[in-house]
């Protein structure tokens, strides 16, 4: 990842997203930001606060509650030469635009024999943790990661929140960015001149030799906490942040497992038919003889996310569950 030389300053994930949006609007007149509440309200997660005032209503466009129409319009605008950033409030509502994303954005290039490109970026919030119950909490990244023709990103750090957007905008194909709602308040240091980052590879967030913890988006922090807890028990965990959910960076995963011989995949999606299952399948196919223990998954319980705090906590992957899964893996000797 590019690390600026300018001094680091304190910021938040939300501010990093906003800085990325501002930079994109400044840098390229073809960029528009469109979506529900992105303008006057300042963004439902305040990511675009101030941008309407700064760039005006032609560049920062509040849309009606018409997910299908404004996502489809973003696709058409990208076909017509613009570089739209479309914000969908949350992944839960993106289902109303799934037709456009799958049947148009992901297929037009292929169906037209390579003639139609859709350089569109769609951002949306995802994930649970705020007690907003079963219609506002789901992690459906896997729905999109299933689709050839899309690229799917999950920025989990300030650097990625700041840097993935521009790289995505330069991509000739549709890119979907998932921002976990629990990350918006994440504080940390970011180089003042932090800039674009690659969007085609995973990152090792913590090197280790005993077990690989694979995570993305909202679960990266939990995997890091689990690695710290494991260190106290003298288990040296390596943490991989997938960053890009499609295409998956198999090389980084395989290299890690070749070293640790064990893997625990953490995924806020449901277990059945999920991304964690896909990663396990790839490891089973290509790293079978490197493995010293069965692969393990820590996923969201197979329930619609409940409202009550204790139930919501119980439904989601938690640090303790990750630690237990990792200890289970290292307890087995090859």
């Amino acid at each position, binding site marked *: 990842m590019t690390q600026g030389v300018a001094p680091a300053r304190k910021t938040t994930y939300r501010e990093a997203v906003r800085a990325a949006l501002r930079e994109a609007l400044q840098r390229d007149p073809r960029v528009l930001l469109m979506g529900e509440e992105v303008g006057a309200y300042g963004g439902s997660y305040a990511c675009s606060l101030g941008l309407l005032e700064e760039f005006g209503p032609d560049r920062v466009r509040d849309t009606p509650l*018409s997910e299908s129409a404004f996502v489809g319009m973003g696709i058409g*605008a990208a076909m017509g030469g613009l570089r*739209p950033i479309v914000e969908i409030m949350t992944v839960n509502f993106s289902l109303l635009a799934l*037709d456009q994303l799958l049947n148009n954005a992901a297929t037009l*290039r292929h169906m037209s024999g390579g003639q139609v490109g859709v350089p569109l970026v769609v951002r949306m919030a995802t994930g649970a943790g705020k007690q907003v119950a079963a219609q506002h909490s789901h992690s459906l990244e896997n729905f999109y990661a299933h689709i*050839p023709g899309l690229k799917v990103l999950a920025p989990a750090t300030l650097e990625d929140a700041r840097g993935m957007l521009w790289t995505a905008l330069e991509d000739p194909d549709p890119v979907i960015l998932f921002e976990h709602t629990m990350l918006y308040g994440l504080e940390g240091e970011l180089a003042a001149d932090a800039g674009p980052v690659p969007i085609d590879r995973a990152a090792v967030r913590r090197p280790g030799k005993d077990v690989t913890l694979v995570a993305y988006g909202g679960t990266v922090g939990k995997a890091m906490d689990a690695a710290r807890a494991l260190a106290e028990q003298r288990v040296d965990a390596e943490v991989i942040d997938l960053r890009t959910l499609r295409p998956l960076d198999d090389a980084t995963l395989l290299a890690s497992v070749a070293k640790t011989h064990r893997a625990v995949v953490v995924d806020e999606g449901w277990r059945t038919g999920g991304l964690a299952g896909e990663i396990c399948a790839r490891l089973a196919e290509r790293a079978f003889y490197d493995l010293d223990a069965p692969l393990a998954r820590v996923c969201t319980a197979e329930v619609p996310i409940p409202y009550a705090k204790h139930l919501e906590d119980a439904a989601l992957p938690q640090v303790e569950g990750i630690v237990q899964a990792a200890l289970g893996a290292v307890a087995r000797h090859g």
Partner: protein
Amino acid sequence: MTTSASPAPAVEAPTREHALSLLRSMVRVRRFEEKCAEQYAAGKIRGFLHLCIGEEAIAAGVMGLLAPGDAIVSTYREHGHALARGLSMDAVMAEMFGKLEGCSHGRGGSMHLFDVSRRFYGGNAIVAGGIPLALGLALADKVGGRPGVTACLFGDGAVAEGEFHESMNLAALWKLPVLFVCENNGYAMGTALARHQSQTNLAMKAQGYAMEATRVDGMDVLEVEAATRHALAHVRSGAGPWLLEFVTYRFRAHSAYDAERYRTKGEVTEWRKRDPIALFCHRAVEQGWLAADDLTLLEREADDEIAAAVAFAEAGTLEPTADLARHVYAEGSP
């Protein structure tokens, strides 16, 4: 038959040259599609084959008035639109034969004809799914300060979809240069208009969106032209979108074959009396715009072109299966 908010624009007598070009356009489409049906029966064309026989006046009248800089988004019943827009018969026939030389290199087939060089952004086979794309193309033209209008074609069935209503609202709200063209052929597959619409005057739908609209006899190519010319001038002036409802009829099955249980033979016979080609020919000869043998000459001319297109398609090549994964992402993309 023009009703609704806007008065009927006057129909003017065409010059001989213009009458010939309208008739030629309709005859090319009719003869081409008859040949397609034959090729379908012969097993050369597979999949779905939606013929617009009976509806040619709309393709000829609307496409003929569009400028090269205008864009088109159509449906799966788009052979007529494509030919009238200037796609070559060779490329369209080769596409239906699944050949590399086809206008979508064999990846699209009958329902997905594309030619970006002519701003023909495809047949879309999701009912109403193309409508939001038209908004986006129009937005890109508007933002880019280009005079283009996007013609968005769809059937009466699409009017029941949410994407139609979302898009009507958004296009009117943002005054986007979209010409909405509804080909109301009285049926969505086997469902008659009165069995799927509470308000069967589809032009009236525009009132709810503060949009201009006209209901026009879609069997009369001069009426089609006059209404389109009038609406286009409005859209091109920047005054916002316009909905044209063309009342027409499909003489053939929904797709290649169907049992046509949903309508009576008598109804088809009645509508065939208003065949747009026969209607125009009769009037043109009566009025002295055309000579009695012009139709035969044009048919012969079309048949020669069609024979050459079939030969071209036959001689076309099949893309190697090794190239299967091309055009999912931009060439050279990771």
